[in-house]
């Protein structure tokens, strides 16, 4: 416990510094908010349009795939910590599990979901449409 004393003291110092700065500013600075003062700074021009909050939809795909493969890794960790006692049966089971997830990876790869470049995905979709037509 005594090992953690310096960290505790540092927390106190940091918190104290923040408290003193904010407290002194609260005491000494004049606080006069006006509507014009609170507007976002746009080089003196009155802002008309709110900046849009868009982001590319690729990130959604990446996040979904991350969740799937992360869960797979957690299962592999679980197997790896007791692989000794599970013997050949354990190896076989985990290989089957890994095979299914690798199949997912291969599908996602060919489908172009891992591409930042959208052209391959468009080509796949176009080929698909030609097949149907």
């Amino acid at each position, binding site marked *: 416990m005594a090992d953690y004393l310096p960290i505790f003291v540092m927390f106190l110092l940091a918190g104290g510094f923040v408290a003193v700065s904010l407290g002194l500013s609260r005491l000494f*600075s004049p*606080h*006069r908010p006006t509507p*014009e*003062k609170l*507007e976002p700074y746009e*080089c*003196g021009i009155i802002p008309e349009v709110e900046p849009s909050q868009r982001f590319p939809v690729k990130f959604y795909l990446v996040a979904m795939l991350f969740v799937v493969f992360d869960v797979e890794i957690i299962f592999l960790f679980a197997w790896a910590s007791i692989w000794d006692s599970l013997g050949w049966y354990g190896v076989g089971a985990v290989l089957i599990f890994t095979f299914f997830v690798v199949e997912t990876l291969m599908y996602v790869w060919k489908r172009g979901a891992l591409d930042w470049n959208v052209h391959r995905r468009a080509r796949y979709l176009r080929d698909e449409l030609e097949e149907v037509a």
Partner: protein
Amino acid sequence: MTTVDKAAKWARTRSMFPASFGLACCAIEMMATGVAHYDLARFGMEAFRASPRQADLMVVAGRVSQKMAPVLRQVYDQMPDPKWVISMGACASTGGMFNNYALVQGVDQVVPVDIYIPGCPPGPQSLMHGILTLHDKIMAGEIVN
């Protein structure tokens, strides 16, 4: 006037951050005041902040056109208190030699001014004299902010 008051005023004068509002020729003289020969850094003021949010003092250096006046007012409004304005040069103080429909005849029509500096353009010594007069006025409590 308590010691705390005096200390606060001293701190405010010794670390004023000017907001650069250089519009025309007077801006060149303001730049000259900021660099080595007529050093403003000895008063702690060499950091001209681009954003009004971080600035104390607005030095209006140059001609303010009618189109620029709302922008000037908005930038002044967005400075946090305490704030001061120095009107530098003849054009900012009274419209200068341009007595016409295009320029605001004196920036005090748009923002409240604390110090007027005459000159066309005022040399760096005049600008520094104006800034130091502002410091003296703040320390003496004539300008309450």
